[in-house]
């Protein structure tokens, strides 16, 4: 690790926590280069605060030892990997370089063997696939290297990827929809009212027409009408009698007056 470079990045505020930790470790040691002495106070303050132990580049040997003993932590392994992938590998360590470079390459590799597609499909249709796995399936079917056996599913997964890109371009105006809804409801109400009104009018009209058309009377109706006529005539006669009884009195008075006039 180039301490000068790290310091530069540190003051730029670009260092990672890991890098800052290694800086602090460097300054915690006694072997600080002269040009870095001015920062020593600063970092030793941190070191005191965090109780950081001396941890210099030389410890690579120690780390390797720990590594082969299987006692390294993940962060330490990362440091080893960083060290070997950098160009500053010491000659003494070059024998291990291939090993760690292989690890670094391997970590980036994602296994994408053909056989796994069958397995993934099986999991997918069983509903057990993870989102990452489904993503892989989609990527596979969108590539042009789909096997003949898998062609039947390519439409399905192709649909998913095109459906994902679909965007509703029309702007939905919610307030306008609401107004429309209210207007439509009102219209339905008015229509229903009109229907009931016109319907009842029609039925009433029908009944009245029926009255006129159905003047063909049954025998019973005729008998009832006969009785009604009789009753009406009697009633009218009764009325007439009483009416005349009243007017008769008037006539008598008139007659009386007339005779008086004649007398005069």
């Amino acid at each position: 690790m180039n301490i000068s470079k790290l310091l530069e990045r540190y003051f730029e505020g670009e260092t990672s926590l890991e890098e800052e930790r290694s800086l602090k470790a460097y300054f915690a040691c006694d072997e600080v280069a002269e040009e870095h002495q001015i920062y020593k106070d600063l970092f030793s303050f941190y070191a005191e605060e965090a109780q950081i132990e001396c941890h210099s580049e030389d410890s690579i040997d120690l780390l390797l030892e720990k590594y082969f003993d299987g006692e390294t932590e993940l962060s330490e392994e990362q440091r080893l990997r960083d060290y070997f992938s950098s160009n500053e590998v010491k000659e003494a360590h070059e024998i291990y370089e291939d090993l760690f470079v292989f690890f670094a390459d391997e970590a980036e590799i994602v296994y994408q063997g053909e056989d796994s597609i069958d397995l993934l499909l099986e999991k997918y249709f069983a509903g057990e696939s993870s989102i990452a796995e489904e993503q892989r399936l989609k990527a596979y079917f969108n590539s042009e290297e789909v096997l003949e056996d898998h062609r039947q599913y390519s439409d399905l997964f192709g649909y998913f990827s095109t459906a994902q890109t679909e965007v509703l371009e029309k702007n939905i105006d919610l307030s306008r929809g609401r107004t429309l809804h209210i207007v439509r409801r009102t219209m339905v109400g008015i229509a229903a009212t009109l229907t009931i009104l016109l319907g009842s009018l029609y039925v009433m009209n029908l009944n009245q027409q029926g009255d006129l058309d159905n003047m063909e009377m049954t025998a019973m109706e005729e008998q009832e009408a006969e009785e009604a006529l009789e009753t009406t005539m009697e009633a009218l006669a009764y009325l007439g009698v009483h009416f005349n009884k009243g007017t008769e009195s008037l006539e008598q008075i008139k007659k009386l007056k007339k005779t008086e006039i004649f007398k005069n």
Partner: protein
Amino acid sequence: MKKLSIILTMMVFAVASSFGQADAIEKYFNKYMDDENFTVVYVSPKMFEYVAKIAPEDMDKDTRDVIKDLKGLRILTTEYNTAAFYKEAKSLINRDEYEVLMTVRDEGTNVEFLVKDQGGDIINELLLLVGGDEFVMMSFVGKIDLNKISKLANSIDIDGMEHLDKIKEDKN
């Protein structure tokens, strides 16, 4: 929905009021319709349509005309409590609606003629109230020509006609 229900309610009221134009007299008739002490007669407008149809051709023309123009007839008579019923009936009559045409008191019998919507000799409803030995309430609805009514007694053969003719003879 609220509006719709209001409209519906209004419609129901409109229909109900047009069907049930029961005035005081109609209510009075309805009140005693089921009373066994009363003799009740009701001839509906529809029945009058039939009556006009079956009225014989050789009938007296005036009588025929009167019957043809009638739209309804209600009769209510009883021999019990006549004075009380007469009083009740009179109190029920709306004097703004009905006009007294003639009142006759003769040998303990009160007779009152009331008319509605009078226009010349043609009236729309004639109400006859008789109180005495018996209580009679008659309501004639329709176009009624008073001139024709006075002639009715002559053409219809019932009791009292002789008496009437006698007077006429006297007159002549």
